[in-house]
């Protein structure tokens, strides 16, 4: 079983790096969305500081969601997805590896970039670790939940808007906890409670969403 996990991971990695341009898209989107806010509401530092946790989190949310839209679609269209469903290996495990790989090239990249944008939005340096931690724990949940939506809409060409409509309401708890953590850090309050709750959500998502994703893919393939 470990062998198939490793082989799958290598396959996804190879596929991702053969089209390196596509890896940048979510990151650039993240940057653009964040930059829209100072342009929209004015560059005054104290206002940006108040908005910063929310803006960064919402931008991360949207960037992850849009990059997940095509997660399974190319496999669905060329028939590879059928072969996954037909394989004797457990489908939930295979999709979990695929989603985690996606998180590594997208969510993790956002986590690494976030301190930069935190500084650009006038967040004090002492708050940045809390920002990074909240995103580190929260982005896997975003990837996993978004993959559920991607699996349910795999046969549709309609794209990101429907996916956003389905999944954004489910993102709200992560959003509340993530921004809550950063705001607590801004006020000098401890962040550990938020981190633990985010961790809980991450564990819950890790255990339950592969089942839903596999179910969605089987439904999509049976058309």
């Amino acid at each position, binding site marked *: 079983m470990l062998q198939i996990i490793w082989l799958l991971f290598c396959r996804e990695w190879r596929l991702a790096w053969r089209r390196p341009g596509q890896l940048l898209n979510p990151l650039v989107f993240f940057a653009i969305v964040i930059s829209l806010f100072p342009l929209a509401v004015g560059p005054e530092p104290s206002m940006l500081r108040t908005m910063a946790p929310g803006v960064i989190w919402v931008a991360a949310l949207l960037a992850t969601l849009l990059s997940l839209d095509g997660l399974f679609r190319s496999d669905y269209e060329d028939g590879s997805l059928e072969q996954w469903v037909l394989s004797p290996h457990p489908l939930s495990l295979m999709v979990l590896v695929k989603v985690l790989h996606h998180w590594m090239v997208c969510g993790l990249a956002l986590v690494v970039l976030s301190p930069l944008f935190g500084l650009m939005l006038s967040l004090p340096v002492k708050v940045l670790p809390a920002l990074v931690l909240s995103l580190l724990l929260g982005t896997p949940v975003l990837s996993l939940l978004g993959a559920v939506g991607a699996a*349910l809409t795999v*046969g549709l060409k309609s794209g990101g808007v429907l996916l956003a409509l389905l999944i954004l309401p*489910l993102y709200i708890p992560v959003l509340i906890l993530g921004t809550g953590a950063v*705001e607590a850090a801004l006020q000098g309050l401890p962040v550990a409670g938020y981190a633990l709750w985010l961790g809980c959500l991450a564990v819950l998502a890790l255990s*339950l969403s592969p089942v*839903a994703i596999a179910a969605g893919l089987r*439904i999509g393939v049976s058309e």
Partner: protein
Amino acid sequence: MNWTFFHKLGSPKSFYDISGRWLPWIAVASFILLTVGTVWGLVFAPQDYQQGNSFRIIYIHVPAAFVAQSCYMMLAVAGIVTLVWRMKLADVALRCAAPIGAWMTFIALVTGAIWGKPTWGTYWVWDARLTSMLILLFLYFGIIALSQAISNRDTSAKATAVLAIVGLVNIPIIKYSVDWWNTLHQPATFKLTEKPAMPVEMWFPLLLMVLGFYALFTVSLLMRMRLEVLRREHKTRWVRDALEKVR
């Protein structure tokens, strides 16, 4: 449990016959409950000590909110039945109930806003309850959008079922996190559904309205389901016979 009854209910024809017999009774019951409840609540119940007459809107807001939430649970149960037992009627129920639930949520939101105006001065406040209702409305929209986006009916039924179940699992998490968010940002403790010891003259009409709304929901659902069943089974003989009788 009598499984044969359950299986018989699963067949579209017997559903059509059974619901046809019950529908008039439920419709009458809903009419009576709603009329009595509305008149009593809006006219005869005593004024609230704090809010005066504006609180009377709860006679519509609270029942609508209850139905909206129960309807979503019903959607998830219908989803489970669709996936596990592959009963087509469960999919019909899911598809027909979703818009009704969405409308109930909308009514709850609008009446909640109307209630808020004299109390807070604005039509909309981001308090825990209204925000949760708004998120519930989005969840309903998601289900309706997905069921319409997939053209293949079997795939659509199963995908919507999975979405409804995923939504149900998330609803407690969303509810708790929104409540928490509210306490973080609004130290004011005013709650929209404060129900301290309400005298009988106040909560009894409320009970009638709640029952009346549930009955109304059942009536709308059964009527929509009957129409959908006729539409789906239009090629079968019993539908043609039934339509002949109407003509």
